[in-house]
């Protein structure tokens, strides 16, 4: 059972429980019911009183070790020890089918490469540091759920780059566990070039794949404009940016 439904069902059962028991006391008849998982419960009458065998349900959802109820990847700060120029992103999720009103409780996932152009989780990646394997690592990955104002915030670092792709961040949006958008965003090349020449990124230098010639962003100038996140800030202090994700619900 999906966690939210489990909790919802639990809440309903908790609220309904006393009523069911009261009902049994009043009519005093033997009943049997079947739970949603097919586990039969039965009622036993002894000396005029009535009780029921509690329904059996799945043991889940399982809390994470340490008592955390949520996936550790649900986090604002996805930096996870990776160095780079700080980047704070605010996503605003809106519904294009509802006068651009905000969408709450949308899950926004992001992931991107580190300053050297490598992703966490992959094995045998070629790149500036040679072939690297980062299986078991989760840096620069995470998700947030949009709040009551439709916002989802992340703290990360400015992405580096790898051969063949413009500088980018991946994102996905789920609403009620349904995938509503898979896309990528990029940045002003003026800023990317400056960042990629700064001390932490300088070994790799400027991205050789420009946005307009990128296999993803380069196929539509209009899309590129809509996929470019505007930024404020500087290399010393880091950058902040906001990006509106329009989805059709």
């Amino acid at each position, binding site marked *: 059972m*999906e*966690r939210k439904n489990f909790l919802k069902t639990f809440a309903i059962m908790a609220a309904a429980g006393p009523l069911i028991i009261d009902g049994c006391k009043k009519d005093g008849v033997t009943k049997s019911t079947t739970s949603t998982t097919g586990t039969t419960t039965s009622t036993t009458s002894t000396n005029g009183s009535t009780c029921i065998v509690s329904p059996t349900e799945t*043991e*889940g*959802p*399982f809390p*994470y*070790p340490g008592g955390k109820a949520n*996936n*550790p*990847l649900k986090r604002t700060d996805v930096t996870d020890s990776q160095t780079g120029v700080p980047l704070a992103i605010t996503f605003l999720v809106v519904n294009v089918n509802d006068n651009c009103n905000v969408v709450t409780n949308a*899950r926004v996932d992001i992931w991107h490469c580190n300053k050297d152009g490598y992703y966490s*989780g*992959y*094995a045998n990646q070629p790149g500036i540091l040679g072939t690297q*394997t980062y*299986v*078991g690592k*989760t840096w620069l*990955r995470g998700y947030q759920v949009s709040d009551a104002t439709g916002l989802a915030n992340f703290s990360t670092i400015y992405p580096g780059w790898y051969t063949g792709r413009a500088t980018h961040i991946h994102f*996905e949006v*789920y609403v009620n*566990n*349904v*995938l509503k958008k*898979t896309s990528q965003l990029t940045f002003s090349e003026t800023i990317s070039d400056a960042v990629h020449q700064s001390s932490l990124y300088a070994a790799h230098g400027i991205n050789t794949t420009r946005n307009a010639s990128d296999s993803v962003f380069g196929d539509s100038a209009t899309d590129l404009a809509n996929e470019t996140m505007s930024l404020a800030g500087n290399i010393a202090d880091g950058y902040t940016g906001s990006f509106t994700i329009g989805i059709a619900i």
Partner: protein
Amino acid sequence: MSKAKIRLVYKQVIDASSESGFEKALFQASYQEFLLKSQAYNRYGKLKTFSSIKANDGRANSLHYKLGFSVGHFIAQLNNKMPVIKDNIGNKISFEAANFELIESHIDDISLHKIAVNYETGALILVELMGEYMLLAPDNLPNSEPLETFVLRMQPDLSIITYEEISQLEIGLN
């Protein structure tokens, strides 16, 4: 016999019948993630099983690593010690890497969800084979006698994935 430098892998298969808390946690977390992440390759839920999704769109092979993120935190709790198998005196076997594998799943039926974690050891010296038992030594010990060894029985879901023949003189030099 010839000495060899080897790496072992142990495959822990987890499905609806698995009983430990660790296995159940991985089972549940990876299934929830499968329901989310498989949608990128299966819009509108047209296909039901991972194998059919993969056959229709090869990019779905990325679900192996994508789902791995949902269970990485659980695996980290193992502190690089394999669950299930132990050496002949009950010590857990250390692993260097754990690779998540989605064997099969079904978007409407969690009971058909089946996964595996492949635990890969670091380099080991295979000193001797004694029937089904391997006399092993870590490959990071100083070059001194006697060699610190342990004995591990070859068993189902355990395999040697790399093999490099070495002379006795080389043992302990690395």
